[in-house]
């Protein structure tokens, strides 16, 4: 890549804080460095990955609001976790997590365990049980 061709397709990186270091050749053919604010192909790859996450989360939210799944299922997805990662954070076996993903198991949670879930999911215990809050979360990374 040539110095003049360094892409500046701004999307997720932040000027003055975090930009990509690119190794590029100058007019004399010597390697030098330049900072890039982003590049369309990788911005789109990232956007596709997030759209996929949001699409799944939207489906899960519908099932939570229908009473089929517990809010843990929704927050697990927007934290990009799977059952295995969540089990590591909450420090309980995966089979228990599976039970708590259903409303029946969720309703039986002790306050102590609920607090551990909330901490793992980066919200407060009150927020975890609040279905109105869940309804209001906007799932998009588009501006």
């Amino acid at each position: 890549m040539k110095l003049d061709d360094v892409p500046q397709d701004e999307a997720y990186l932040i000027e003055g804080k975090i930009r990509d270091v690119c190794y590029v050749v100058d007019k004399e053919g010597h390697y030098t460095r330049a900072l890039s604010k982003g590049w369309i192909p990788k911005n789109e790859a990232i956007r596709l990955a997030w759209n996929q996450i949001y699409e799944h989360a939207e489906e899960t939210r519908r099932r939570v609001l229908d009473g089929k799944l517990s809010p843990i299922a929704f927050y697990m997805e927007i934290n990009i976790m799977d059952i295995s990662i969540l089990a590591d954070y909450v420090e309980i076996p995966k089979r228990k997590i599976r039970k708590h993903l259903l409303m029946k198991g969720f309703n039986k949670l002790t306050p102590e365990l609920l607090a551990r879930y909330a901490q793992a999911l980066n919200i407060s215990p009150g927020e975890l049980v609040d279905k109105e809050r869940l309804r209001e979360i906007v799932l998009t990374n588009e501006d």
Partner: protein
Amino acid sequence: MKIDFQHNQAAHCENGVTSNLLQYYGIHLTEPMVFGIGSGYFFSHMPFMKLNGMSVTSFRVLPGWIFKRVTRRLGIRVKRRKFSNPDKAMEELDRMLEQGRPVGLLVGVFHLPYFPKEYRFHFNAHNITVFGKEGDRYYVSDPVMENVETLSFEELKKVRFSKGTYPPKGRMYYIESVPAQPEIRSAIVKGIRNTAKDMLTIPIPMFGIDGIRYLARKLRKWPAKLGDKAAALNLSQVIRMLEEIGTGGAGFRFIFAAFLQESAGILQQPALNELSAEMTVIGDAWRNFAWQAARCFKNRDKGMITYDKLADQLMDIAGKEENIFRKLRSLNL
């Protein structure tokens, strides 16, 4: 308390931490030098390792290997620790800082507050250097950041004990002693030989040049085998690995080209300049692949760019990479 430590931004975190730590101990190596001596260049496509349910593609060696190889090849003594108890891990860090040692830490990026949200996946092999503490806050040299950052005690503890695949378990490392006159030239030669060997001779089809061809064969079949949507997701994940923060562009191919150019001067080997230029062409071919692939998974080209054509591009890149590493291997360095 703050150690007089110079933060330099780098493309890649492990190169950056290694280069910054070495600089503190008086060994000045650029990022491409660290990457080349540490034989960081690689390729693998591993169906047995999954990320978001898809096979992992990587353009570099495993995390930790660059630091390990660079320090070994330069005769630097290092100490590594890991912990089961987070408070103990923080105590040990404080103790090292009080002794005036900058400390390298392995952390997860998911909870790193200064990272852009869109980049915060459960990736647990990020490297930072901590070089001081003021009250509750630690001074952090994160090589991918433009400036020095700080983290609170709790934030740092959290990222050091992030969970998921390969949890860091509070891993820390620091330099114990460095030789007065490190053998840079022989380390460069070892680095080049090791990379050529890795790329050409591993008898498993998923690694090195064979790995690129393996990916090409699999990618060709994705639309028929997985359907359009899953094929697009798999393709986009390859592009993310190729161009994610920290590759210097084109999956480390440009960093390696910079290393070959710098080595040409140090070793007085003009042939390496030509190979550096060839490597730049390969990097450009990878960038072209990424550009075409993005059009393909965005479906903006109305079917003009097919998975077949992308696979052909990869086969062509594999041929070029094979050619360059055969030449590197036969060079009398």
